[in-house]
């Protein structure tokens, strides 16, 4: 037990990163499940992080109030983002949502309340590893519970064929709005956890580089599999740390793993698992 605690003390930052990254991967995974290549998770995360941190640090709110408000803010922004990009698909949607992420980051750089480029300091350490994993488990349980729901089916058929989905009575526009709202809420949770376990926020914490990593987690894990996304996040968070001795070249290793997965197992870890169970993998569809 003592050894285990010592190990955790040494690696708790990595353990926290894995949990937060897994939550972010789940956020993107539900977008991909609906065929929406919407790459705004880092922005949603930033909105959740800044909203909760500003509410607590600047306005003195209790975290119990600030956290649900921050989640709601991220969800509302996600839903609102779905409206102007309603007619965009695939790479066009990706570019538009990356652009939105950049707007959020640049606004955070240029307004006083976020601390601008100097960052927001003095965030109290109100959350810790158990909170991160309790949140991850709670989100996982909710996603598991609704996996056979009509909404999950509506997402899947929207991904497969949007016109045919409309033909069976599914309002695909509404599916997109709800999907992005859920993605916003989940990434907002990750932002809150990040803010109150890192004590300090800067706009660069939510830059495109993070979004790129989240996409890699989902590609490695399997684009429409929540469990795959979590495993992808775990593998790709641990890998650079495990190969730290390679110094700058460890990023090359991550790239090589990504290439290998794309070439030899395009459905990611989830497809390998399904292959072992002889069940065909779902495709990303028109994302």
């Amino acid at each position, binding site marked *: 037990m003592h050894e285990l605690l010592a190990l955790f003390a040494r690696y708790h930052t990595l353990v926290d990163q894995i949990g937060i990254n897994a939550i972010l991967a789940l956020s993107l995974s539900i977008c991909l499940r609906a065929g929406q290549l919407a790459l705004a998770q880092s922005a949603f995360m930033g909105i959740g992080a800044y909203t909760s941190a500003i509410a607590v640090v600047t306005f003195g709110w209790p975290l119990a109030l600030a956290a649900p408000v921050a989640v709601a803010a991220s969800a509302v922004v996600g839903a609102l983002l779905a409206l102007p990009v309603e007619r965009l698909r695939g790479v066009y949607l990706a570019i538009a949502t990356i652009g939105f992420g950049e707007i959020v980051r640049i606004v955070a750089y240029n307004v006083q309340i976020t601390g601008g480029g100097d960052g927001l300091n003095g965030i109290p350490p109100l959350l810790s590893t158990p909170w991160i994993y309790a949140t991850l488990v709670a989100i996982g349980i909710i996603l598991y519970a609704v996996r056979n729901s009509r909404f999950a089916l*509506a997402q899947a058929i929207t991904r497969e*064929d949007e016109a045919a989905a409309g033909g069976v009575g*599914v309002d695909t526009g509404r599916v997109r709005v709800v999907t992005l709202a859920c993605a916003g809420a989940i990434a907002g949770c990750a932002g809150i956890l990040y803010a109150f376990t890192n004590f300090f926020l800067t706009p660069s914490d939510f830059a495109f580089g993070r979004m790129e990593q989240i996409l890699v987690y989902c590609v490695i894990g399997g684009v429409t599999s929540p469990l795959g996304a979590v495993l992808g996040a775990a593998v790709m968070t641990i890998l650079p740390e495990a190969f730290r001795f390679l110094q700058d070249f460890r990023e090359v290793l991550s790239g090589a793993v990504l290439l290998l997965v794309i070439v030899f197992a395009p459905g990611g870890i989830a497809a390998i698992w399904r292959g072992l169970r002889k069940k065909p993998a779902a495709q990303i569809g028109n994302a």
Partner: protein
Amino acid sequence: MALALENVRVRFGGVDALAGVSLRIEPGSVVGLIGPNGAGKTTLVNATTGIVPLAGGIINVGDVRLDGKRPYQIARSGIARTYQNIRLFGALDVRENLRAGAIRRSDLDTNAMFALLQRAGMQNADLSATASSLAYGDQRRLEIARALASAPAILMLDEPAAGMNPSETLALAALIRSIAEDGIGVLLIEHDVGLVRKVCDRVTVLNFGTVLAEGTPDEVARDPAVIEAYLGVAV
């Protein structure tokens, strides 16, 4: 509920794809829609189901106006369809495709799914089979079963016999008649004139986006204008 199209017009650029088409499908009847390639048959189905916008005209199902509504709203009004090029949810399994058809209703149980599949002619169906892995004929049948899963008032079938052999076409004819006997109005787009004559109560012939002829299958088959459109005239 009857489906009524009045003076429906669709324009693609400067071309009148439908130039004032009127059509009525009564509950329990089968209406055939035939015509040469490019006559506007699929465009009429697409216009009715909201895929393409109308340039004019009125579409009603029962007392409900459909023109100007979005495809999902039209589907919820009781209009189901199949597609000329099969549009199943390919990566999903047979069960999920049927659930998708019934997504606006209470969930189908396994018995109801098997009943739908058997009715559509898939006797030994595997609910867990991926839709895209099915044989072509079974994909067509699954698409019909998916449409029936929505319990529609009107079913529009766009060339359902394409690629089917004579015995499969015969079974399809029996299926279409049984669907109509359940009180569903059926619109059948089909090039197989034998099938049309066998199952349709009325036939409408389109040519260049206008109604060339309308009547019983026998009346239409004797119409000189129809014969000319299909076979041309002697020179």
